[in-house]
């Protein structure tokens, strides 16, 4: 029983970290219909900025995170303006080519600027160490990541479902021409949602850095994981992504506990199974 509990906690923590990092991608893929393989690259930029701010400038964790999110958005604005805008509505493969190209460039530049070594983001005193749960201990930063995930999920849900901007966004997604005719400036809507997605990526890069350390190849290394999460959840759905992350986290964690040598088989067979049963992602059926 204790073991089951213990695995469940690990699964929850891992799933929530996945959620924080991937949810931005779900926004770009589901709401903006862009296969954005460069998502990990933006998360990585966030990680590097936070690491630079915290380690080299000696700023606090909260400020470093803020700098990472805002900085990444600022970096992303020209990229959106000059590159992404060219591929909205383009065929999937063209989007793949473009976003892989962007990823390669960002990796190359990061490698040049920061070097190939691992970069860490020093945690504040409160997030260091572990909390004792009685039967086991759990790292404090994992609890923090779980909280972050919940806050992000709630805020994003509110943003999309309950604000005027959310209404415009959903209208633009359903029918861009119609939304434009009704006076919605779709360009602005797209730019803002892109900024939100990038900001979330950066936040995920910072919060998840304890699990997925920042280094130049971060952007490629975890690309597949992000894609899988979004596809399983159903692109564009927040509850879908949340359930997918928790489910995949649980499968992954259980697999690695019970039979680590077959962990990979477990995970990908489960992915195949889920995708075949729910071809539009988990949210496709839940709605």
């Amino acid at each position, binding site marked *: 029983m204790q073991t089951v509990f213990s695995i469940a906690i690990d699964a929850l923590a891992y799933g929530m970290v996945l959620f924080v990092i991937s949810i931005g991608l779900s926004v770009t893929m589901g709401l903006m219909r862009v296969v954005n393989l460069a998502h990990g690259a933006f998360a990585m930029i966030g990680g590097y900025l936070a690491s630079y701010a915290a380690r080299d400038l000696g700023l606090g964790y909260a400020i470093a995170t803020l700098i990472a999110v805002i900085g990444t958005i600022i970096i992303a604005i020209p990229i959106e303006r000059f590159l992404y805008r060219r591929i909205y509505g383009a065929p999937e493969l063209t989007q*793949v080519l473009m976003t*892989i190209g962007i990823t390669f*460039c960002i990796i190359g530049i990061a490698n040049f600027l920061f070097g190939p070594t691992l970069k860490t983001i020093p945690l504040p005193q409160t997030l260091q160490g572990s909390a004792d749960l009685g039967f086991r201990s759990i790292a404090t930063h994992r609890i923090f990541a779980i909280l972050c995930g919940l806050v992000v999920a709630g805020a994003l849900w509110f943003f999309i479902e309950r604000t005027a901007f959310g209404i415009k966004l959903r209208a633009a997604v359903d029918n861009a021409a119609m939304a434009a005719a009704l006076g919605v400036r779709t360009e602005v809507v797209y730019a803002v949602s892109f900024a939100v997605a990038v900001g979330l990526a950066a936040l995920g890069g910072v919060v998840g850095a304890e699990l997925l350390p920042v280094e130049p190849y971060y952007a490629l290394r975890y690309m597949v994981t992000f894609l899988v999460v979004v596809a399983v959840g159903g692109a564009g759905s927040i509850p879908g992504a949340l359930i997918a992350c928790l489910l995949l986290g649980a499968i992954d964690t259980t697999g690695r506990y019970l039979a680590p040598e077959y962990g990979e088989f477990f995970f990908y067979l489960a992915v195949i199974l889920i995708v075949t049963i729910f071809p539009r992602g988990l949210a496709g059926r839940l709605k």
Partner: protein
Amino acid sequence: MAVSMNDSVTAGLPVRRKFDTGSLIGLVAIIVIGVAGYFLFPNNLALLTRIIAIMLLVLSIDLVTGYCGVATLGHAALFGAGAYGAGIAAVHFGITEPLTMTVVGAIAGALAGLISGIVILRAHGLPQLVLSIAVIHLFHEAANKASAWTGGSDGLAGIAPDALLGMFQFDLWGRTAYIYGLVLLIVVFLGLRVLVRSPFGMLARGAREDPIRISAMGASVKSVLLRMYVISGVVAGIGGALTAISTQVVGLDSLSFTLSAESLVMLVLGGTGSLYGAMIGTVVFMWFEDLVSAANPFHWLTMVGALLIAVVLFAPKGLYGSGAVILGRFKGGRK
């Protein structure tokens, strides 16, 4: 509006001809470039052979992606199956005759095509992409686990193919391997030219453009795609076997996501839906990679990235596709 008799109609009439000029031009081009490569880069034949092997993989992706519209990031599974098939045949079963090894590779590729086709064709769009990713990881992991057969991450070494046709040794300079590769490429190219013009080729093109219409004609789209997957497995398998024969070692990289993604990039770079696009994309990408990584390995990734972005911005249909459009416009302007 309705176009009555004009020159484009008459221009279309020669379709009736039995002789396929397009294939002939392609054939001549491949031979000329191939022979030129042999004499211009006599010391780079190993690299050229590698380009041919990857070209076969890219052609194979084109069959399912370009002609049938299936998005896949897991096609190296077919290539790697061919490579391991030929390699295992040589190392564990003593089948070292190169032609037989190639056939074994083709069969292994076809089998892998069947298996991945069955899985991948169960979804569309992004979920399909993810299924293909899952497939390649499962193949990779399986090969890693079966290290008694595959050598695991250390690679399958000790493949020693016999002399080709009993006469031509696979030598240090890689001449035999290169010429063998070139011949394989020509055979595959001609075969694929026939295939894409054949009734089945038309059916496949139709299945990409409008699957509902195809099923209203009484053909099962899924069966068309699956058959194409198997055929594409044969082509990729031959490419894999060529690698196994020419390098005499097979590594897990031949079953990797990286190779799958890279070769898809090469295809899109050249332009999907045409055999020339696939071949041009491979040559340009690999040549560029070789050139840049030799010149400055520390920055080649940035430059390759810039190349890809430039292609999307300035040649959105890929190098060959956009080239053809520009050429067509030029011709049209002259008329």
